[in-house]
């Protein structure tokens, strides 16, 4: 059976570890990257069905990364995550949706909520392919 593949992009090493553990426990094959630039390179080298992308990152931030992913891979599922900055997370997540994120979660969120959103998106994608 093929495992669903997810690429996690976040500059926070601890959160990256936690999200990796949660997705691995849920049966996903997990790739991780500490910023958008490395994330794009990893995606090109080894495409996945789902990308989880933080917004505020030091090298190639999330909105730019999501925009590039969406333009190149229209069918890819993308979840944006953010703790916000001076303006709060909602504004960044609205922007992420506008440029192509399928879902957006404000930090702090439950890991279970993130995995559920991923399952929902990929489940919907599988149903779409079958019909």
């Amino acid at each position, binding site marked *: 059976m093929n495992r669903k593949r997810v690429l996690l992009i976040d500059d926070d090493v*601890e959160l990256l570890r*936690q999200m990796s*553990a*949660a997705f691995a426990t849920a049966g996903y094959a997990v790739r991780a990257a500490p910023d958008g630039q490395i994330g794009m390179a990893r995606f090109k080298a080894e495409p996945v069905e789902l990308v989880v992308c933080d917004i505020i990152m030091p090298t190639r931030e999330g909105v730019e990364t999501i925009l590039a992913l969406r333009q190149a891979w229209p069918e890819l599922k993308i979840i944006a995550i953010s*703790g*916000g900055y001076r303006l*709060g997370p909602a504004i960044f997540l609205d922007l992420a949706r506008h440029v192509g994120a399928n879902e957006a979660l404000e*930090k*702090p969120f*439950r890991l279970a909520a993130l995995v559920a959103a991923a399952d929902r998106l990929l489940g919907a994608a599988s149903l779409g392919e079958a019909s």
Partner: protein
Amino acid sequence: MRHALNNLLGKIMGAAELALDHGGSPEVRAELDTIIRLAEEGGQLTAAAGRIERFT
């Protein structure tokens, strides 16, 4: 500041969730649930503080 606090609360919540995956006594699990709930309340507070900040 709010960004850092939201990130911190998320990681506290995440660590407690992952610990729950490893089982533990009912007492320990109840305390982990409390940590998750309190971190969520912290997130609601930072969101409320942000809304107030935008109007002041």
